[in-house]
């Protein structure tokens, strides 16, 4: 029981930056999750599940993936804090945000 409590307490702590890989899936012309908050140093992976290609392109130019065909993925590591709005440059109606703390 004590062990379990310890594990729960650990889980409640913010994850150390180096371990926190996050996946954003792209399905049906949407990023999911759409808005995420991550610690600096996190690597985010986007994976496209649509039959239509998509990209991940930040508005401020910080990152820009090539066209991702179905099943392709793209990774970017967020080194420093900030708010990164990004779109799919092929379907710019697709919008999402990464907040780095």
């Amino acid at each position, binding site marked *: 029981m004590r062990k379990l409590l310890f594990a729960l307490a650990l889980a409640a702590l913010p994850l150390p930056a180096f371990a926190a890989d996050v996946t954003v899936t792209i399905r*049906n*012309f949407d990023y999911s999750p759409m808005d995420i908050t991550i610690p600096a140093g996190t690597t985010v992976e986007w994976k496209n599940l*649509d*039959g*239509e*290609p998509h*990209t991940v392109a930040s508005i401020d130019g910080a990152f*820009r993936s*090539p*066209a991702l*065909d*179905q099943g392709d993925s793209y990774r970017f590591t967020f080194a420093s804090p900030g708010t990164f709005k990004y*779109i799919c*440059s*092929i*379907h*710019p*109606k*697709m*919008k999402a945000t990464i907040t780095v703390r």
Partner: protein
Amino acid sequence: MTDRRDALKCLGVGAGTLFTLSGGVFSAFDLAQAQPVTGTPLFLQISDTHIGFNKEANPDVVGTLNRTIDTVNALPHQPALVLHTGDVTHLSKASEFDSASQLLSRLKAGELHVVPGEHDVTDGPGAEFFARFGKASGNKGYYSFDAQGVHFVALVNVMNFKPNGLGALGPDQLAWLKDDLSGRSASQPIVVFAHMPLWTIYEPWGWGTGEGEEIAALLRRFGSVTVLNGHIHQIVQKVEGNILFHTARSTAYPQPAAGSAPGPGPLLVPPAQLPGMLGVTVAVRGRKNALALSDSTLV
């Protein structure tokens, strides 16, 4: 949706739209129903060839493009110009551009002019697309030229997206357009071509251009204006005064009608129906009042 499919089923690959200059305005016709073509077609509009696409909606986009080219090559008189309204490739890859150029070079029609679609420039400005088609515009992508008395304007609306997802020219290109059109005689026919629709067809899917109203304002004083777009893989038309707005079919795969699906992805249709939903547009400068607008191409 079913009605639309039924209406389009009868058209074959390459069955496209014919434009005639009637009373100063190009009119559109279904090639399958048109009267015999008199005169030399002024241009062919081909769009959304998506070379590199290989999904279920059409595993053979090379094959359907080849069939389209064969149909156009069989016309008794070849168009003087070919306007490609973008999405030449699916993923902006060099190999896709190579393949597309090789295929399109089989067209017997005249000089090829290409504007980029968003699928052609996923690698950003100054990359593959511009290495191949950037020369005419000093790598800007937008430029104009005159042919047979008609002023043609090529615009790029896929590299400066508005926050709402609509296409955009951006301030530099809009200023260039204003300058390009100013001082031009209102009696000169104008043909404007760009990838994304230059008027808002369906905002939730980004089917429009942010500065659409400003662009239309620059064009209104002309007696004959034809605006040609692709992007939505189906024919949609609107007439506003002397301006005819027209989107062409793709040669690769159809897309759903505005709002009829969760998103604007490739539309899956039974293989037998696919050829009827692909095609091109041919413009003919005909005699005055030669023909009238055909309902079959209106969506």
